[in-house]
């Protein structure tokens, strides 16, 4: 038996902060499900603490976070810190209204990938596959 866990394709998608724009998060959830992922969809108004708690409870392999409120830097910085403290190893993918100049900072904080508006769904699925450790 290999020591590596088999890929279960179980991921979490959530809206972080008070922002209610959930079109993107829902569309991505549907696309991931169609691609064979099991998606725990947490919906709107999630705090970093709650997101981390659910990620641990559900033992997900990757986390998709959608933010359109311009608060990505503060929210992601807290999310990454809390995730690290509680031992969440699942890669975190961020999407939303995010100016390109903020991407390096989010990567520095440890974000696996930042998805801009207009990213094709096929690319989104590919990135989640990579995040859960499926060989490309």
């Amino acid at each position: 038996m290999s020591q590596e866990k088999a890929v279960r394709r179980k991921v979490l998608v959530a809206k972080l902060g008070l922002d209610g724009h959930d079109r993107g998060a829902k569309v991505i959830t549907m696309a991931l499900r169609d691609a064979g992922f099991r998606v725990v969809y947490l919906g709107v108004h999630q705090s970093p603490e709650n997101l981390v708690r659910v990620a641990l409870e559900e033992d997900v392999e990757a986390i998709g976070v959608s933010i359109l409120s311009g608060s990505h830097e503060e929210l992601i910085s807290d999310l990454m810190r809390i995730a690290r403290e509680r031992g969440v190893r699942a890669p975190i993918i961020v999407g939303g209204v995010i100016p390109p100049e903020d991407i390096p900072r989010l990567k520095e904080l440890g974000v696996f990938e930042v998805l801009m508006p207009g990213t094709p769904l096929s690319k989104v699925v590919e990135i989640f596959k990579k995040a859960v450790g499926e060989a490309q």
Partner: protein
Amino acid sequence: MSDSEKIREKLLEWEKEVVEPLLKKAPERKKVFLTEEGIEVKRLYTPLDLEKWDYLEKLGFPGTYPFTRGVYPTMYRGRPWTIRQYAGYGSAEDTNERYRYLLSIGQTGLSMAFDLPTQLGYDPDDPLAWYEVGKVGVSMPTIQEMDIVFSGIPMDKISTSMTINATAIEILSMYVAVAESRGVPKAVLDGTVQNDILKEYIARNNYIYPPEPSMRYSVDLILYAAKEMPKWNSISISGYHMEEAGATPAMEVAFTIADGMEYVKWVMERGKVPVDSFAPRLSFFFAARTNLFEQIAKFRAARRIWAKVMKDRFGAKDPRSMMLRFHTQTAGVLLTAQQPMVNIIRTTLQALAAVLGGTQSLHVNSYDEALCLPTEESVKLSVRVQQVILYESGVVDTVDPLGGAYYIEWLTDQIEERAWKYIDEIERMGGMLRAVKLGYPQREIAKAAYEWQLKVEKGEIPIVGINMFVEPEIPKVKILKVDPAARERVVSRLRKFRESRDQVKVRTALDNVRKAAEKEEVNIFPPIYEAVKVGATVGEISRVLREVWGEWRAPEIF
């Protein structure tokens, strides 16, 4: 031989002798041409498409039932639409500066954006609020902030629209109290408060309380304004956010009108008032997308349906109760982060749709809004787009210039027919409140959003810069960043403000809010207004209401 028989004969002849031979040599680009709604568009429209179509029944005249051609007899020949850019960020000072700037470049009305804590009833020093203070709108915890936002702005002359729903009474109270402190009585105030909680559950997600107390809250505002604020639009029944969430044009029209019907029923029942006592102050809000003719048809169909609903179902007698007056915003979801300057061209077409569709007020999105809030430079172009359409294009010189066009009238009928199907479905469910609890509009919209995205993926819906004419790099544009010091400014001012007020008065006022909330038959507006006046904060008032009414968790539909 009748006229239409002659036309039919000639049409068949044209198809056989002219079109068919051409198609053999040069086929059309696609087998089927579809609108965004999925309506199949024919090659050509002729009088035959409007054969049983009755001008007086379908259109009538501008300013008269069924208002298809416009709500006012002279439309833009008499008065232009209001140039009203949705704006606000950071602290009250930042927002005041932006409003003065907008007015200086020719904006003719204000539209206030509030930050998420204000919209969700949290003060800026609440731990849940910290991340979002001043980010997507101005932070507005107290009456003091409203006073700063309007410093140097004549509240008796300008009309102000406020995008506020779950905390609408608190915010409107601040506006009224500040105006009155300047000697402007509430009866002369001109403006709009969004106050549309149903679409929050459906699409926008900024709700606090469960649906029933939320409806009571919204209805109490409508009833209060009907008595005290004759020039104020007490609600802006909004399809915009549903369109942004994925609704098709027919869904946008239908769900908005079904929301409107639910409010009318509630106000009549709760207030025991006749429909004409409040309906003239109901207003609407729609999106304008790039698909020009379908959007124009959408606006015209919406006007006709609302007029019928108000006249036939609710027995309105006052023509003003039947008029669907609306604000338009260009569709944010159609902005691209890629090649952002192209957005100026998109929004110009969208704005043109709104104007040809007879809007009363217009916001044009700025080219940088797929990336950040608009800068002064980008928002100026949005105002200029409106001014070019208004002053240079000539499309405003006659009322409803597309009225009678075979294609437009046919398409208006198509949208109307599809919208009625949804409206009837919702009526069968027992009205929009029940439909919302069942998750019906939420599900329809999410499904439509996904289907749209799949079509973009396949290239069936072409978007320049996204699935055609793609460029690898996103060019650098100037980005507006909210000054992080704004948060500190707002919080420290709030703390001083809390210390400076008469604590006994605040406690008594909050207690009165609680008692009113507990008593179903009392109008909740006056006690909230009193509390705001003595210095209660949005967070404090909301906390009391949360304690009495509870909070809403969305049904798991997904």
